[in-house]
């Protein structure tokens, strides 16, 4: 029953003991706070950095160059934008040195809306991040994946961007991380720093967690069905799962794919699903213009153009400069449960080309084998 924040914390603990993790650092990451979402409490190698995002990314690069294995945090992805040239440098370090300088580093940063964060605690970053070649990008939607993807990210020889959907950081995952106490209260007692009272000298009593790597580049199928393929991740993923369960009562079933890794993309899983359903809906909450989901749709449309029953669709955030404070503003800006349900119903029930008697003139295999 760990939360995602606890899953990340347990992974960092496992990694500092077993995977050579040398530094977890960023603003308020070390004691006494242990991170604004508590994901870095109690770690031996966690420390507070100056309040300087460029210094955080630059220093992480330097640590990795000198043989360390850092996890650097940008407190909210809303504050990562002044480091983009450094992220580009990290992404091209191996390539520009013709393979001689690799950078095993992880940058973790909370993303997205859902906590009433207003304009500067609600940004998404995946679309911009996907324009920075040389990075792997992961984005878990539950504690088990957060644990396993963090282990894989730290063990990876290349830069990995670990996007933390902040709306889900405190959500509990029913499944257990191997070694996690079955009793949720026990876990909390052992690894959560007390919120009240004198906490000087507090140390966690770490459970003996075992490695459970989630490979980078593998999506997970959360629900299986036939009427449409729904690809999502982060805050909107559980909304899609819930909608799939609801829409079952209307006789509709969906492949709900939790992408988990945004780069490299698990194309085989997407292809397999689309081959079956022939209908594609991508859901995320980044602003819609030049949205990461558009890339998925472009790739899949090129491959499946003659197979698709209906036009593929993107349900994404509105192209507005920020997410307003008042709840109706946030609700109108990024997909909510009802928007997800409606979009899924629409894509599954829209009359398709087969129904209209329109069949492709060119054999579909010609295009698939192109």
């Amino acid at each position, binding site marked *: 029953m760990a939360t995602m924040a606890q899953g990340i914390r347990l992974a960092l603990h496992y990694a500092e003991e077993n995977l050579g993790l040398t530094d977890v650092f960023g603003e308020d990451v070390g004691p006494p706070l242990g991170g604004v979402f508590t994901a870095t409490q109690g770690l031996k190698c966690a420390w507070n950095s100056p309040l300087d995002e460029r210094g955080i990314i*630059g220093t992480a690069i330097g640590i990795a160059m000198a043989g360390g294995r850092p996890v650097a945090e940008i407190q909210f992805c809303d504050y990562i934008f002044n480091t983009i040239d450094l992220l580009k440098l990290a992404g091209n*370090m191996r390539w520009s040195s013709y393979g001689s300088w690799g950078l095993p580093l992880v940058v973790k940063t909370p993303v997205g809306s859902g906590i009433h964060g207003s304009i500067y605690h609600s940004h998404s970053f995946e679309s911009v991040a996907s324009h920075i070649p040389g990075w792997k990008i992961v984005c878990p939607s539950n504690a088990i994946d957060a644990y396993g993807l963090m282990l894989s990210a730290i063990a990876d020889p290349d830069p990995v961007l670990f996007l933390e959907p902040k709306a889900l950081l405190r959500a509990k995952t029913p499944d257990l991380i191997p070694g996690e106490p079955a009793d949720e209260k026990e876990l909390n007692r052992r690894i959560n720093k007390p919120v009240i009272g004198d906490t000087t000298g507090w140390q966690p009593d770490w459970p003996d967690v075992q490695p459970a790597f989630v490979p980078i580049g593998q999506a997970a199928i959360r629900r299986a069905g036939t009427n449409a393929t729904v690809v999502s991740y982060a805050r909107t993923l559980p909304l899609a799962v819930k909608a799939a369960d609801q829409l079952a009562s209307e006789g509709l079933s969906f492949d709900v794919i939790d992408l988990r890794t945004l780069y490299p993309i698990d194309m085989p899983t997407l292809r397999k699903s689309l081959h079956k359903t022939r209908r594609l809906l991508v859901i995320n909450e980044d602003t819609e213009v030049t949205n990461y989901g558009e890339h998925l749709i472009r790739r899949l449309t090129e491959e499946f153009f003659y197979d698709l029953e209906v036009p593929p669709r993107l349900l994404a955030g509105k192209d507005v400069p920020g997410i307003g404070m008042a709840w109706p503003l946030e609700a109108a800006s990024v997909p909510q449960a009802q928007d997800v349900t409606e979009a899924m119903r629409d894509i599954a029930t829209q009359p398709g080309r087969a129904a209209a008697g329109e069949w492709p003139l060119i054999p579909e295999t010609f295009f698939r084998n192109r």
Partner: protein
Amino acid sequence: MATLDAARKRRIHDLMVKTRLTEETAISMNKKGEGHFWIGGAGEEAFGTCLGLQVNKGQGPDHDFLHLHYRGGPTAIAMGVEPIDHLRQMRATASDPFSGGRQFVEHYAIPEWNIVPVSPTIETQYTMAPGTALVQKRHGGHGITIVTGGDAGAAEGDFHVCLTWASRPGNELPLLIIVTHNRWGISTASSSQWSTTSLNDLATPFGIKNSRVNGNDVEASWDAIAQAMDYVRTERRPYCLQADVSRLYGHSSASGANRIEGEPDCIALFEDQLTAEGIVSRADCDAVWDRWRAQIRSAYDQIHREPYPDGTDIWKHIFAEPVRT
């Protein structure tokens, strides 16, 4: 102070000439269309050579890390970079050992000597240097991190980043922060940007010891570097050193790469000194130039037989293992 003996001075002179001729060959290649862009450290040989010769060269935290910028040629050549490899990168041949024909010239990347990849982005190296220095501080020993950059670029926040991260109380870093001051940033006069001519002074409020040296003077440079390095190595604290240098061929090929009148030439100055001291004769000097001219000429001839990278090469080394997506 005179810490340099005659043999060492001859060695420094030899390396300065080797570097200058390498740079001038690269410039002439650019003018002949045999290399798309030239930038480099012509004019910085006195300071750069003295720096390169005092580096504790090797791999890993026991040795010095170098975060150089695009005028680091004199330092790298003093450390052992050969003209032929420099010219390979100038021509962007597949045999360019630093980047396989991907980067501008003088953009070294040498893991065996802790020379981290040079980037054309000015000052970004100042954000990374604290990272290698931090690892060295924890590691102990005498390895230090050296970062270099220009005067105009010190206006970037990254220079401030470096000063902050190098001087955190209790976490002071073994970091030698160098500014090579040539009074220009492309066409922007330093005097129009800075109210001070001593950028090392910027380190003072951070409690970072600092000084300034005439980078055209070999002996002064040698001693200033030796003192700064000794402090950083033993105290495990940062030091900021400004070297006043010449920009002998202007900013880059983009501004013509022609010899600039009135800029002091550190090699000519050093030769005057060496002959006055009776360490070498004019004929000895000429012999050094002739020897390197011949060697670099044959390096230049050699690289003409070497192919450019193939277009399919772009997919190599994006990640440690090829990624399919």
